[in-house]
């Protein structure tokens, strides 16, 4: 469903290890391979601590992987330094989870959203007012908001300002880390509306971190499910509800509460909690919580296998017969 010529960023075998107490190592991302396509949204879902934010932070150089490469326009961006890095940063921007802590509280909105433009000498100081107004109107806020401070705005308005700031440099890729989870549900819907509208207009690629499957399926073109640092399933966004295969993806789906669900249904949450990423079990990382766990799962770690175009699963239950 995705055209390979639209591929703009590709993560290859990305691994990140952190040193931990007692000479041990914590693997936050283990051999992650993902592809970002022009103008499409990739949703990354998983429980807290599964490494989804760690991965997305590589794209905006807030951290660097231990191994592997991230190819953007034919160049491995994880090795960039100095001037080249500064230049490249314009093309990938980020929106954070909590808009109240991602701004300098002493800066006015005008200064916040024009700072990236001034930094890259895209505008002159004299053009600040007009530019701020234009950017605010783009995110459907009144232009007068330029004079406000972050604390004079509601959470939804602040998140719009954060989006305006990220879009100011007209980047190709935007990373959004739980950009709507601090907001009320009605505000969340309007923000998603805005994001998808801007994406269509400007053909932006979005990497969206989320733990709400209901939300992610409403606007992601591609969804990757992550568990303990491993990508366990990648599928087209519209497939989540009916065609997700991995037992972990199914378990996440079963845990979603929905106003349209059948309330007599007894919820069957998966047992226990994710183990500490310090002691990931050998074999399949999900083996101790999986109801289909087999002998093979304890010995051999499943790799991502393609089931159909655009749909890969890392589970021993699927895809074996293709090899035979």
């Amino acid at each position, binding site marked *: 469903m995705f055209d390979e010529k639209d591929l703009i960023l590709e993560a290859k075998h990305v691994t990140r290890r952190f040193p931990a107490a007692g000479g041990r190592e914590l693997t936050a991302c283990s051999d992650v391979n993902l592809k970002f396509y022009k103008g499409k949204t990739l949703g990354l879902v998983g429980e807290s601590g599964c490494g989804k934010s760690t991965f997305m932070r590589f794209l905006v150089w807030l951290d660097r992987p231990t191994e592997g490469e991230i190819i953007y326009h034919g160049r491995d961006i994880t090795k960039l330094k100095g001037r080249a890095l500064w230049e490249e940063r314009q093309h990938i921007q980020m929106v954070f989870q909590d808009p109240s802590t991602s701004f300098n509280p002493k800066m006015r909105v005008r200064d916040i959203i024009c700072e990236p433009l001034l930094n890259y000498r895209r505008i002159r100081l004299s053009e600040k007012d007009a530019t701020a107004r234009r950017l605010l109107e783009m995110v459907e806020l009144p232009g007068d908001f330029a004079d406000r401070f972050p604390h004079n705005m509601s959470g939804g308005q602040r998140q719009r300002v954060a989006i305006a700031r990220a879009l100011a440099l007209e980047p190709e890729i935007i990373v959004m880390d739980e950009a709507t989870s601090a907001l009320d549900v009605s505000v969340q819907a309007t923000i998603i509306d805005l994001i998808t509208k801007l994406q269509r207009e400007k053909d932006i690629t979005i990497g969206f971190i989320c733990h709400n499957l209901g939300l992610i399926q409403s606007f992601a073109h591609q969804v990757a499910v992550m568990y303990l640092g491993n990508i366990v399933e990648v599928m087209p966004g519209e497939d989540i509800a009916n065609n997700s295969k991995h037992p972990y993806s199914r378990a*996440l789906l079963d845990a979603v509460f929905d106003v349209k669900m059948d309330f007599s249904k007894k919820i069957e949450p998966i047992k226990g909690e994710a183990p500490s990423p310090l002691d990931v079990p050998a074999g399949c990382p999900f083996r101790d919580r999986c109801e289909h766990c087999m002998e093979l799962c304890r010995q051999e770690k499943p790799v991502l296998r393609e089931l159909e175009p655009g749909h890969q699963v890392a589970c021993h239950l699927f895809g074996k017969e293709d090899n035979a």
Partner: protein
Amino acid sequence: MALLEIKNVDISYGGKVTVKNCSLTLNEGEICSIVGESGSGKTTVIRAVLGLLAGGGRVTAGDILYEGRSLLSLTPREWRSLRGHDISMIFQDSGAMMNQTRKIGNSFVEYIRTHESISKKAAWAKGVHMLERMRLPDGDRIMRSYPFQLSGGMRQRVGIAMGMTYQPKLLLADEPTSALDVTTQAQIVRQMMELRDEYGTAIILVTHDLGVATYMGDKIIVMKNGMIEDQGQRDYMLRETENEYTRRLLEAVPSIGGKRYV
């Protein structure tokens, strides 16, 4: 007689009325969900029930009756025997509500011995028993841990275990699952439903998650700007209500297999 009756209550902070004319009736074993956007006054209402209004908040009009008795005229001593015994509360992050420098067991034993004159040893055993009832494996180890050594889901279970020690008739839950992952949330929701089925505990659930609110609630109250905007039985609220605001809230909930923007 209703278990809890809130009658036309006004609540003010420093002379400014924040919740106006709020009424609610709850029977034994009933679950009522209060939903609304942040700042709509939903937490204020349940804090008033427990006499725990923060920052000098006061009930300025109306009355709150628990088993027919007004809660507003209780002495501090009467409050102490009621709180944590007849009425319990679970917070958004139970771990943050505990003293960080004391081990769970230490707080738990103190709590039990406030309500019952038993030995420390017996109180410890009772604590361990409650933790294990809440499906926390190895209760002894948890009693010997500090709150920050446990995961969010475990801390929340500890909070529920404490709250349920005396099988309260009324449980007030303030966003009990909002800080948790979806899978842990499902486990906690299931446990709260079991409390109702086993002990007949009535629950008031405050949440902004409409999915959880509708799954758990027998009836649902929608609050907006400190007023009750709409209320009714769950099926009525989901299908029949003509209130514009309720409908808009319900439509905004993303659902699996629902609206797609792309």
